[in-house]
């Protein structure tokens, strides 16, 4: 039974006030809040067990190493990877993608080859590939999207071709909030032998992920968007593929032996984890995933679907409201503009009502260019948001609109 009040009670920040008004936090697409048990877990490890992982023979180091590796198992199960060797800890989705662009890209993508992304990618799945194209002389191609926010696959066979080495697709766009048909694109890409990375930053917290069922080659997500600490991310990659890729960063922990003549590298997953990881953050992520699993992603998805449908319905009643991405397959985020009111003006004033939402280009400038707007506002939801908060948002939007 999904009990939103019980869930809210686990997030102390939701009781905070801003400008003496009730906090209505609707910027979960940027970062979610953390439940107390995640913060408690982090505090516990800092205060009682802190010691570097994978190094010491002593009790504390073993305690942290075990917990660090237990998180890896939790993540493996959470996304249904085949093995913990396929779970690599990074600083976030952005670093995960950069790892792939540098290690896979610099090894397997050559001059004249093509890499494909979608028009709705976040900058973090565009820029690393543009940088690769500059380094390697490969070509970036783009799958466009339609005005309703769905990918336009009508010309897909001319975009994904025998020259394609990599396809990057966002599972759920951070602006449009629509669930993309990634499985279909993965199948297309595999026919021509291309590898596919799914950017799951906006999906992992809303949608059950099964990397084996998807058959994606890489999957990237960030801890802080699924109620875990900041500064931790995950890259999933198929084992054989990861084994064929060289290390990206060099340093401690990623080596087998080092001499000045020759260094040999550690096994998976450690060969991609140079230096001391944020192990206490990783332990915190494990706790967050334990918490989400207890509630059940299917329960969360059903609750959030109802909430987002309600938000779209209520927001649509506001005069001048334009919602971007009108496909019914919408999940978690609602981006919008009201009349001619600048997103910055609206966002600044909503803040005064205690309503915290994102404004601007949201690190997806090509989407802004598609709709010919400089920026948008975005309400993005988490499992602790309520219809009452949607009502507060709508009421505040109406009041602000009347000021301009």
């Amino acid at each position: 039974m999904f009990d939103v009040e019980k869930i809210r009670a686990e997030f102390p920040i939701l009781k905070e006030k801003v400008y003496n008004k009730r906090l209505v936090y609707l910027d979960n697409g940027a970062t979610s809040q953390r439940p107390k048990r995640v913060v408690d877990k982090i505090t516990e490890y800092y205060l009682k067990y802190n010691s570097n992982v994978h190094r010491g023979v002593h009790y504390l180091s073993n305690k942290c190493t075990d917990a660090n590796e237990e998180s890896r198992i939790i993540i493996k199960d959470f996304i249904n990877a085949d093995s913990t060797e396929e779970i690599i800890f990074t600083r976030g989705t952005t670093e995960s993608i950069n790892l792939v662009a540098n290690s896979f890209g610099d090894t397997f993508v050559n001059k004249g080859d093509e890499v494909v992304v979608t028009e709705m990618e976040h900058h973090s799945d565009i820029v690393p590939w543009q940088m690769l194209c500059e380094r390697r002389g490969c070509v970036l191609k783009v799958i466009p999207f339609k005005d309703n926010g769905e990918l336009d696959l009508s010309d897909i066979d001319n975009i994904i071709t025998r020259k394609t080495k990599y396809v990057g697709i966002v599972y759920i766009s951070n602006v449009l909030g629509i669930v993309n048909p990634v499985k279909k694109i993965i199948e297309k890409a595999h026919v021509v032998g291309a590898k596919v990375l799914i950017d799951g930053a906006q999906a992992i917290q809303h949608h059950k992920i099964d990397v084996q069922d998807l058959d994606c080659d890489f999957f990237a997500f960030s801890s802080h968007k699924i109620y875990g600490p900041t500064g931790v991310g995950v890259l999933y990659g198929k084992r054989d593929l990861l084994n064929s890729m060289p290390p990206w960063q060099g340093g401690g922990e990623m080596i087998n032996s080092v001499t000045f003549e020759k260094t040999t590298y550690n096994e998976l997953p450690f060969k991609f984890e140079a230096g001391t990881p944020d192990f206490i953050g990783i332990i915190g992520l494990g706790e967050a995933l334990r918490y989400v699993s207890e509630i059940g992603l299917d329960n969360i998805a059903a609750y959030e679907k109802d909430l987002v449908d309600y938000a779209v319905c209520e927001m649509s009643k506001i005069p001048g409201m334009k919602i971007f991405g009108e496909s019914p397959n919408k999940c978690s985020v609602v981006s919008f503009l009201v009349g001619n009111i600048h997103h910055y003006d609206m966002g600044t004033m909503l803040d005064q009502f205690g309503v915290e939402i994102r404004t601007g280009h949201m690190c997806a400038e090509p989407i802004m260019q598609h709709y010919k707007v400089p920026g948008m506002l975005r309400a993005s939801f988490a499992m602790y948001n309520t219809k009452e908060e949607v009502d507060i948002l709508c009421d505040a939007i109406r009041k602000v609109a009347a000021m301009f």
Partner: protein
Amino acid sequence: MKIEEIEEDIIEEFSMYDDWMDKYAYLIELGNEVKAMPDEDKNEGNLIRGCQSQVWFKAEKHDGRLWFTADSDAVITKGLAALLLKVFSGQTPEDILSVNLKFIDKIGLLKHLSPTRSNGLVSMIKQIKIYALAFSVEKN
């Protein structure tokens, strides 16, 4: 009027409003009163890039004083620009360069607007000072 006196006036005007909602309504009013810049002046050279809204500032010098015009695509930002126009337009480059603004702190704008990230208020002031510096060098 001297910059310090104009600042005092602005501080007094803002002190009439207890609520930030009213202060914002006043900023919006100021923003709406700013005369729109001709499109040809809204060029790359006059653009001050803020993170969230675009602002254009243009400076001209007559009789040893600088005269500014400004515009923005966001009304609140234009209201902020209007305050800076009040303070700086018609002043000498020397006075603009030597002044240490106090009204922004006094009316609580810094706390409320996180200027470095979102509205370019700091960038606007910096640009005004750069204009002043350029014109003062020109004179010498």
